[in-house]
């Protein structure tokens, strides 16, 4: 198989950077460094979590809808200071990452994700699985999410959703 080395380098570099970004996104949440999570988005970035049930029916409702970093920061402050819930941790697994294209400095990517949630008593369950649909751009040398849409396969949320997916 012959390959255009320059194009290859570029594709590889892009893939590498996007993969690293996804890994960093996972570790930021799974390490409970949630104060750093809004910084993975652009100032006006949007973050939505919805279900296949709503998504496939074209229903606009989301479980979480953050329109800009401010709302993301409010969510994090709220879960640190105001909300009551049983402490728990996530383990993110992402797979089937595809960089769908890059144009005008914007990168479109998607991946499958699974979030395993572990409770203090010790039970680990599949809290969520589904698909990320993302638009990323580069800002001062780092990739940031202009948009992340997480579509959960299940209609259901067990107990509550407080930590971002």
């Amino acid at each position, binding site marked *: 198989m012959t390959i255009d080395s320059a194009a290859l380098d570029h594709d590889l570099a892009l893939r590498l950077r996007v993969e690293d970004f996804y890994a960093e996104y996972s570790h930021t949440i799974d390490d409970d460094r949630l104060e750093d999570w809004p910084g993975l988005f652009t100032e006006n970035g949007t973050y939505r979590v919805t279900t296949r049930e709503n998504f496939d029916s074209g229903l606009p409702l989301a479980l979480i809808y953050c329109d800009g970093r401010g709302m993301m920061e*409010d969510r994090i402050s709220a879960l640190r200071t105001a*909300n*009551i819930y049983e402490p728990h941790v996530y383990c993110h697994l992402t797979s089937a990452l595809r960089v769908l294209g890059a144009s005008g400095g914007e990168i479109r990517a998607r991946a499958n994700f699974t979030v395993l949630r572990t409770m203090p008593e010790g039970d680990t369950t599949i809290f969520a699985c589904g698909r990320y649909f993302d638009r990323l751009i580069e800002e001062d040398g780092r990739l940031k999410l202009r948009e992340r849409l997480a579509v959960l396969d299940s209609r259901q949320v067990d107990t509550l959703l407080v930590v971002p997916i």
Partner: protein
Amino acid sequence: MAMATASTRAAGFTWPNNDLSRAPYRVYTDPDLYALERERIFQGPTWNFLALECELPNPGDYKATYVGDAPVIVARARDGSISAMVNRCAHKGALVCYKRRGNVREFICVYHNWTYDLAGNLTGVAFKRGVAGKGGLAADFQPERHGLEKLRVETCRGLIFGTFSDDTPPFVAYIGAELAANIDRVFPKPLKVLGYHSQILPNNWKLYAENNKDSYHASLLHVFHNTFGVVRPNMGGGVKISNSGWHHLSYTQRVSLGDDEVAREKVRSLQEQYRLKDPRMMEHRLELGDNITNAIQTVFPSLVVQQILNALAVRQIQPKGVDRTELVWTVLGFEDDDEAMKELRLKVNNLVGPAGLISMEDGCVGGWVQRAAKANPDATTVMPMGGRNVEASEGSRITEAAVRGFWKGWRECMGF
């Protein structure tokens, strides 16, 4: 049959001292009581929310739902009328609808192809004459006696309710005019579904039913809530309770009272004052002709009607076992919402639902009771706020009257 069924096993259950302000923990943990609730409450003299009319706009539209944990179909017939029936084939009992929604000419059970019209009447039996004159239906078979089991249906402001019992009074009489007025208030014009949430609660269904009637907890458990003045004990409002005691309405108005009682309490929830970076999710457009910011209404046993600012929804309680409950949120707007209003509703809905900044706590607190309950099923809760009886309360929500009303309804249905 004479066997030791739930009803005979649970028969000896008695309510301690006939006191509505104490409930034995056993009611949350006993599978025999759970089975009896299916028969005496959900299939008893109660109205249960099934669907919204706007979910079934066209003839042949159907939706599969549950009453208690019994699968039920609600459908719109050719003549526009709405029927509801148990989602269980009259032949060998397969789910007739195994998809959650759809549009059909008739209901066809895939197992043996028996067919039913949209009202659940048996219209066809495959090979009823057999093949080549062999086999086929028993001579004495009477098709008219083998339709799907039907529920009686009523609608109110676009909400569809069903009941298994002939004794259930008409819906408005069931909840009373005073509470019916709030349904008129919240749903004054054609509705539009913005989406659904489904939340699994790790607890008995009654813990969530009580939670909605528990106007005492709102300002104490939901900190985000009162920190931002959506509900504060020192705002106006009150609790209305139907004469039966079964149903309630808790509401809040922007009318300030003296802050002193609040000051006197060291309420955890007021300890830190906290401001939003982006307050757009708290915007409130007064759209219902009054200054009520927050109205939570229950229709015994399984419906909650919600107005929180501009977040409108109905919540249906679906028991899934003695210690597991599904809460189905149908989030609503009005057909004539403009884009700005639609966007506002989507933002305000950050406050409610399974990830709701002011409602998520209700998702876990019931589970904490469930886990503690089994320590001793014969101990009881106490509900002493606002006395021991079931009366409405003007100007204060610091009462458990509506919760005691829930137990009044439960005991009357269960016969304990």
